[in-house]
């Protein structure tokens, strides 16, 4: 049987702690030269409305430790509006009923069969949060208590779940460009995490005095600047453009997620992709030589060290996602789903065939 899982089931089945543990195992495997990862690819053609593009994004990977190959597929209409002077990437809920389309398919590497099909929203948030949480556990001060958060969208919640899983967080200050959104976000996540979240009117107010600064935005411009850095801070970013280069250079200890630092872009003629344009998105930080920097699996495996001194400024850039993460986190989820008898069972024969083309 092939399991069809919902986002609600993912939320119920897999905790952030379990996600971080799965990622830790996976990065050790990657460091040992076993896991396999395919760089993200984005295909772009003109979209249904002015200024929008249709994008099919995919990435895949294999984790032998979990016995799982995974592919994540997103069918999106993407726009790049400007809010409070910052350009950002926004996916429109253009599917029937105002929905988004993102899927993860898990396959058994022993038999090839599809094990599970699930929407990617919750798993995506867990794996991004878990990745930054895993890094923060090795790079933030042990006694980190105060978090400054920039962003109040989907990923911001995941970042807070992750930092609360690895540190005794006492206070969170949150800034985002829309006042109503950050207020609503603070209310929702204070209740969910049991930690007081204060919405603040400027990024400086969020990061001043913070032990950990977490950027969790959709920006394709910089949102955090070197002048805001204080000794002992850990800087955590989920998107390549978030930190200005000077802030990254200021870090005493810098770790990135993965070296193959840009997606494969396949773009129709006459279509301009704002996040691939000069001075935006993927073109930012080009002065930084990603290939020379240690990756998360080096940090997890201990071939590069974590924080050594309390006053160090440390930085983790979750610069690009890996398909491999879905194999690991998806593998952990699948085990729990099977154990719990969760999900809708679909006949595997629907997705297999008696011919090989």
């Amino acid at each position, binding site marked *: 049987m092939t399991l069809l899982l919902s986002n609600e089931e993912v939320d119920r089945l897999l905790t952030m702690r379990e996600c971080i543990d799965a990622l830790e195992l996976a990065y050790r495997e990657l460091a040992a030269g*076993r896991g396999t990862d395919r760089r993200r690819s984005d295909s772009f*053609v003109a979209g249904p409305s002015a200024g929008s593009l249709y994008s099919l994004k995919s990435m895949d990977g294999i984790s032998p430790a979990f016995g799982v*190959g995974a592919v994540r*597929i997103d069918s999106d209409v993407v726009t790049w509006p400007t809010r409070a002077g910052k350009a950002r990437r926004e996916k429109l809920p253009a599917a029937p009923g105002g929905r*988004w389309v993102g899927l993860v398919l898990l396959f058994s590497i022993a038999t090839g069969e599809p094990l599970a099909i699930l929407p990617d929203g919750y798993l995506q948030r867990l794996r991004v949060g878990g990745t930054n949480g895993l890094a923060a556990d090795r790079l933030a001060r042990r006694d980190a208590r105060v978090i400054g958060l920039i962003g109040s969208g989907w990923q911001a919640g995941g970042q807070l779940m992750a930092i609360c899983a690895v540190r005794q967080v006492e206070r969170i200050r949150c800034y985002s460009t829309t006042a109503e959104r950050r207020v609503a976000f603070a209310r929702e996540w204070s209740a969910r995490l049991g930690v007081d979240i204060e919405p603040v009117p400027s990024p400086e107010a969020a990061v001043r005095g913070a032990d950990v600064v977490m950027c969790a935005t959709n920006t394709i411009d910089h949102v955090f600047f070197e002048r805001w850095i204080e000794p002992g801070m850990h800087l955590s970013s989920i998107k390549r453009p978030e930190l200005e280069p000077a802030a990254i250079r200021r870090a005493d200890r810098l770790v990135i997620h993965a070296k193959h630092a840009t997606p494969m872009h396949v773009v129709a003629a006459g279509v301009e992709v704002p996040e691939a344009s000069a001075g935006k998105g993927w073109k930012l930080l080009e002065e930084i030589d990603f290939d020379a920097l240690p990756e998360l699996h080096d940090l997890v495996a201990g071939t590069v060290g974590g924080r050594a001194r309390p006053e160090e400024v440390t930085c983790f850039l979750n610069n690009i996602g890996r398909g491999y993460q879905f194999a690991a986190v998806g593998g952990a989820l699948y085990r729990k789903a099977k154990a719990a008898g969760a999900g809708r069972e679909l006949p595997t024969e*629907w997705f*297999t065939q008696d*011919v090989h*083309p």
Partner: protein
Amino acid sequence: MTLLLSNEDVLQVLDPRACIDALEVAFADLAAGDAVNRPRSHTYTPLGDGHWYLFKSMDGAVPRLGVHAIRMSSDHTYDHEQGGKRRREKIPLAPGGRYVGLVMLFDIRTLEPLAILQDGELQRMRVGCTSALAAKHLARADARVVGLIGSGWQAETQLVALAQVRGIAEVRAYSTSPERVAAFSARLAARIGRPVRPVASARDAIAGADIVACATNSHDPVLDGAWLVPGQHVGSVQSHELDVATLERASVIVVRSRDAATFHHPPGRAPVEAAEVKRLDGRLGAKVVELGEVVSGRRGRRTPEDVTLFTGGGLGASSGLGIQFAAVAHVVYEAAKAQGLGRELPTEWFTETAKP
């Protein structure tokens, strides 16, 4: 509703003419830059003793048809030596001794998955219909005699599709197994309503043919370019079938795409990407054009005496393009929907209210 379509469903609605037309749109739009194609990727991991897990994918959008498709294969392969030759075999290990190959078709306006299809029959049809599309534009308008090398499933779809683009008077078929080619000839004559005559050699099949169709999985050339005569069109499903003399003889070498065929992702700390494509230099390289340029009328046959060549596997091993699956799957989806075929799955299973 999202349609789940089995190979049997696909077979029921498959219309080679409609597939050729859709592929024509796809290749013309690829040449114009309106359609896009993401090269095939192989992600794999060793399972020991020559066994591998291999995940393969490719995707492409054809906006004029309103669709994007991704094709995925989840394979267990076994590399071994047999008779001094290296072979790679796919082993059907999914429950019931089955293989795993799927196409997901997305609507680029509403994002939703329109259909999930088993890829076996689609794969056959995209190969045969792409060859026929090339023959439509490259063979002489008065081409009537087909010389066929091969008698497997590729050979079958080659003939069925070719019959859509030229008034075939006769087919001369050769394969290494006389029994197989005899049975094949009888079956195909009935299917296309034209005489199909088994012949004793590849040379006999080619002599007097207007269209030469090579449809084998041979690792070695199946014809000698010296046998070709002016005016012939040669179609091949994978480039190992062709000898250098055939490439020399061709006035034009048509491929589906000049892009890299495949990116490889082996396990390891630093994934590497390697393109697997034979680069033709100098005089031969100068003759290479893309099928999209041909269907757009910019390149192709210039005189009735030209020898034209289409190599459907590009200049490496045969592999699909995402846009081919988008075009063929779209045709199948529309027909299945009109005929009420397939299993309807709630689209909400595959969409979400969370913003990923």
